[in-house]
């Protein structure tokens, strides 16, 4: 029903099953650690660590970086960093089992691979900026935040999907 072609590589889980598993995972995460998951926190720690390594005094002065720099602790030693590492490992395992691992750029046949990469970079840029404002991205704010019925989580979720639906028409050439 969901599979557009029967290529084994494209056989994915039934989305409701996936959603159920994800929901159970979120419950388990909250039950064990009291917090939800997140996806941008790990990258943010990398940024902080890099700036700190390159220009430590500048990092100390800045309002933004100094919040994440502790005297004796490496900014990379952080719950989200480990969790991010886990995401990569877990996804790799799942991909390898199904034989989906390969280097390629996935893009619509209507545009070139390079154009896709340029837009991917732009998209990432916007997400990087936006996720800092919103204190979370789709995983941290929308998913985990809404699961505990936080107002911020719902606002972020509705904002992201609402905006994307509103403006999808203008970007259709990129995708279909």
């Amino acid at each position, binding site marked *: 029903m969901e599979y557009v072609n029967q290529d084994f590589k494209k056989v994915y889980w039934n989305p409701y099953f*996936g*959603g159920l598993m994800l929901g159970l995972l979120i419950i388990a995460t909250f039950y064990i*650690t009291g917090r939800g998951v997140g996806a941008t926190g790990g990258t943010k720690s990398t940024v902080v660590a890099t700036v700190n390594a390159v220009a430590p005094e500048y990092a100390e002065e800045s309002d933004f970086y100094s919040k994440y720099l502790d005297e004796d602790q490496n900014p990379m030693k952080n719950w989200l960093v480990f969790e991010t590492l886990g995401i990569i490992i877990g*996804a790799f395992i799942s991909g390898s089992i199904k034989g989906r691992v390969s280097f390629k750029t996935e893009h619509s046949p209507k545009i070139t691979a390079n154009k896709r990469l340029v837009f*991917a970079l732009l998209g990432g840029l916007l997400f990087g900026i936006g*996720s800092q404002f919103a204190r979370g991205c789709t995983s941290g704010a929308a998913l985990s935040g809404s699961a505990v019925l936080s*107002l911020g989580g719902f606002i*972020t979720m509705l904002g992201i*999907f609402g905006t994307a639906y509103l*403006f999808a028409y203008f970007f259709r050439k990129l995708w279909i």
Partner: protein
Amino acid sequence: MGPLTFNDIISTEWNYVIALIIGMAFGYILEASGFSSSRKLIGVFYGYDFVVLRVFFTAVSVAMIGLLYLDYFGFLNFSQLYVLPTYLNAQILGAIIMGFGFLLGGFCPGTSLTALAIGKIDGWVFTAGIWLGIFIFSEAFPLIEDFYNSGYLGYVTLMDQFGVSPYVVAFVFALVAVSAFTVASIVRRRVKDVQY
């Protein structure tokens, strides 16, 4: 009584190991559901593949209901869970920016990591973009700091803000989710197939 680490039932040394394991499960589920493919993800906005909607709403709904039941039966203390702080202006702006990011890039941070893991170059580039984006944000921070902190309402939940019972919210959300799935199936049938 959950949350376990908060109540010292599991010591905090395990925190990072737990983080790793949870991350692995998260990555596995995302990839196995097909979230490592940007064209599959973007289908939700163009009507040819609603996997994002189905997985997301199911996950949030299941999590909500599960947490509330656990709280009611005393296995979990709901008030000890981390609630996202609300910064009205900043979050709305952030969400709008991220919406555009999604349309342009075809990923969200979590899914870009799964794409990265299976070798998708656009996933790599997207993640690099996130890194740059955060960097730009932090460099520009002194200028935007005020807006960043504007609209602060506290660590509010829907219950605090609107005075509704969490159980009603969870039920209504479940209803909305199921209706959305039905509409999605109808739309899916009418939209032209896309090979990806």
